[in-house]
């Protein structure tokens, strides 16, 4: 038991070093601060302990001192804020060409869908050195995707996609925890992230039978009857979905929004919430008809219909081209 006393968590992602650096900096800064204050208190307590005949010296205070010890900490705090913000910004902006893994959390398990078609439960295989973007949603309550060795965490919400990303840097098996309290087996909603050397990872991938996720989505697209309205060659009763992803959409109420995962997901589950300009609200809702995994497949398929050539206007009925290099952001649902 005592042989097993880790004092520092594994460091296995691109983010880990940055977070640790800030942590160590704060440890030193705040440690020094603490020590300074404690020493001062102890010294005063000893040096000015009560003695017969010695009176305390009444001191009003000093504005100059007050201003220093509020101004200087303020400056230091702003520095900490900026440092933290930079890391956070990085944590929340996945690189454009990340590999995408769809994640469904439910009480009390993690389900992963790889683009290549592999599906896993409570175990996630990823290659070393590849940017991986987790696109996550929950089937019931709020969960949180937490890999301590990667220093990343992101809550997973029902009815909406949230995103986390990492680049694993060290092969190994790491804890995956659910960090948001989610009911009885919250502490059992754990798993592992297996980081593999790229070659081994390829091997692992080819081991699976399944068809790629977009292809599964395509089949659903046919079998659910989406294709009756959404034709890929021409404009059917519904809008053409080619080149929808990451492009702006003009809505009936006049707003323009970028079609991200959230938008596409919402359009399928709740078509009336955001109507595309020029179309009637005839699309049926698929909420309760398709599962979160099927939804993910459909979204992956629709995304596969737009080529990653960014900044090209495409054949969309949209007012403007999408600015390229847009980070993925979350959306209100």
């Amino acid at each position, binding site marked *: 038991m005592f042989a097993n006393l880790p004092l520092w968590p594994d460091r296995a992602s691109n983010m880990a070093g940055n977070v640790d650096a800030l942590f160590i900096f704060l440890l030193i800064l705040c440690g020094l601060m603490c020590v300074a204050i404690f020493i001062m208190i102890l010294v005063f307590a000893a040096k000015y302990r009560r003695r017969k005949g010695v009176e305390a010296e009444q001191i009003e205070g000093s504005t100059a001192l007050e201003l220093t010890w509020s101004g200087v900490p303020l400056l230091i705090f702003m520095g900490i*804020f900026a440092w933290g913000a930079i890391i956070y910004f990085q*944590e929340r902006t996945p690189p454009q060409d990340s590999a995408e893994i769809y994640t469904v959390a439910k009480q009390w398990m993690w389900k992963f869908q790889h683009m290549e078609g592999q599906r896993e439960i409570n175990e996630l295989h990823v290659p070393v050195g590849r940017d991986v973007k987790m696109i996550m949603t929950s089937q019931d*309550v*709020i969960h949180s995707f937490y890999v301590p060795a990667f220093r990343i965490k992101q809550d997973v919400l029902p009815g909406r996609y949230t995103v986390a990303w990492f680049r694993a840097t060290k092969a190994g098996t790491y804890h995956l925890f659910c960090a948001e309290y989610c009911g009885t087996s919250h502490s059992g909603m754990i798993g592992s992230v297996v980081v593999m050397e790229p070659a081994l990872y390829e091997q692992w991938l080819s081991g699976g039978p399944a068809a790629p996720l977009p292809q599964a989505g395509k089949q659903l697209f046919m079998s659910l009857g989406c294709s009756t309205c959404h034709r890929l060659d021409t404009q059917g009763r519904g809008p053409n979905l080619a080149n929808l992803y990451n492009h702006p959409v003009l809505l009936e109420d006049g707003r323009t929004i970028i079609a991200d995962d959230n938008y596409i997901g919402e359009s399928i589950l709740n078509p009336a919430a955001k109507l595309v300009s020029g179309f009637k609200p005839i699309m049926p809702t698929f909420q309760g008809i398709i599962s979160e995994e099927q939804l993910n497949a459909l979204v992956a398929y629709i995304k596969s219909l737009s080529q990653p050539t960014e900044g090209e206007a495409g054949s969309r009925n949209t007012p403007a081209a999408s600015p390229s290099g847009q980070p993925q952001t979350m959306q209100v649902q």
Partner: protein
Amino acid sequence: MAAIPLPGAEHENYLNKEYGIRSWLLTTDHKRIALLYLLSITFFFFIGGFFALLIRLELLTPAGDLVQADTYNKLFTMHGQVMVFFFLIPAVPAVLGNFLIPIMIGAKDLAFPRINLLSWYIFIIGGCFMLYTILTGGADTGWTFYTPLSTSFLDTHVVAAAVAIFIAGFSSILTGLNFIVTVHRMRAPGMTWSRLPLFVWANYATSIIQVLGTPVLAITLALVALERLFHFGIFDPQKGGDPLLFQHLFWFYSHPAVYIMILPGMGVVSEIVACFSRKRVFGYKFMALAVIAIAVFGFLVWAHHMFVAGISLYAALVFSLLSYLVAVPSAIKVFNWTATMYKGSISYTTPMLYAFGFIGLFTMGGLTGLFLAALGLDVHVTDTYFVIAHFHYIMVGGMVMAYIGGLHFWWPKISGRMYPESWGRLAALTIFIGFNLTFFPQFILGYLGMPRRYWQYSPEYQVLNVLSTAGSTILAVGYVLPMVYFLWSMRYGKVADENPWGAAGLEWMTASPPPTFNFDETPEVTWEAYNYGEAKEVPVER
């Protein structure tokens, strides 16, 4: 120490004026109401502490073996809810504040004595709901009630718990309201704002938060109840509701509420440090301003509890920045306490030991707050034991220390008796050691990644957990000690005179225990606060 007459037998005071249950339950005397609160919250503290011990026992081993998973979830939920809403929030304001504020400003009572009694009854009704919740099986939402878990996925007594807190909230609002009006309207002649003791300032600032924040919690919990009972869809993602809206509303109250749980403690410590250094508090004006600043800025930072919850990147930046602003006035407080001791005449009485403990542990807790407010770092440590350690350092290491220290400091005034000094020091030391052993390992656990609210955990975390559990038993002993000797001292303690500490402040200028209307005649204040230059010197027992 043979039979010494009952406290204050020599003069008529609030304790011996009337006897009998009725004279207590129908009293409008703020001092008696304070004692009613003291009894009630002590009761709840031991309930909450009992749950804490069970939590710690379960966590002794990595496997979930002592209790069921659901039971564990109920334990930390009830622990959090009882400790926060039924112990720590009322602790200093409703006990010490109630007792002292009118005396410190030279008033006969609070502005609304009957509302004061009412607020105790409301507290008791809320407490009964809480007990009902506990006895019928408890709720397992976590103290935070996060939706949609609390609204749609649990079939425990969530509504009862919400109602309990809803009701207790009104008690808190009424106390705050009473204090605000009292401080504005009831000060004795000459008691200007710049002469108010810092304890009064701190409670005044606390009251602002109670009055402005608590109603938002009330409506939020009411909506949760409606959602459970009638399936309203306001927070339900199934209906398009946004679960984050709940979190915004909850933390709009509950972040400021953490300052309800520390500001009064800061007030206590200011009094103690001044008294036992025999000095005016260094930078009085800044100290007073700082508590108000904390109360106001405290309302601007709530979403720092939601950095990974899915709020917008930009909102997160704003809230992180604002969180640092609120830390500045806290820094001012720490530095000024330290400076107050400079060239003082310091004695190490029990209250002073608690004050040392407070300053040290609050500083550590506060500084780790800076870690949490740093966005990129919070992503890693949020919802881990790092957070648990952070807030126990402030709430237990800080506020509970201040509260117990304050009880010791004013015990002669409250009871008319002295507590046994050496036992006091021993208890303070025990608590300090037990506390650090319990919670320091949790910082490491947190950074290692152990999530909070875990019933079972990975074996590599065991050593630190064992340390923590060991600490909690020491802590428990430390908390039982004062209970025992306070009770003992009520009968056998040395009779205290008017001002055993040689302290400045109006409360020390009336008899111990004070007469029913506090002063025989309304005092007229002509001196500044903390005029230790003139206060009588008292030799302190070593």
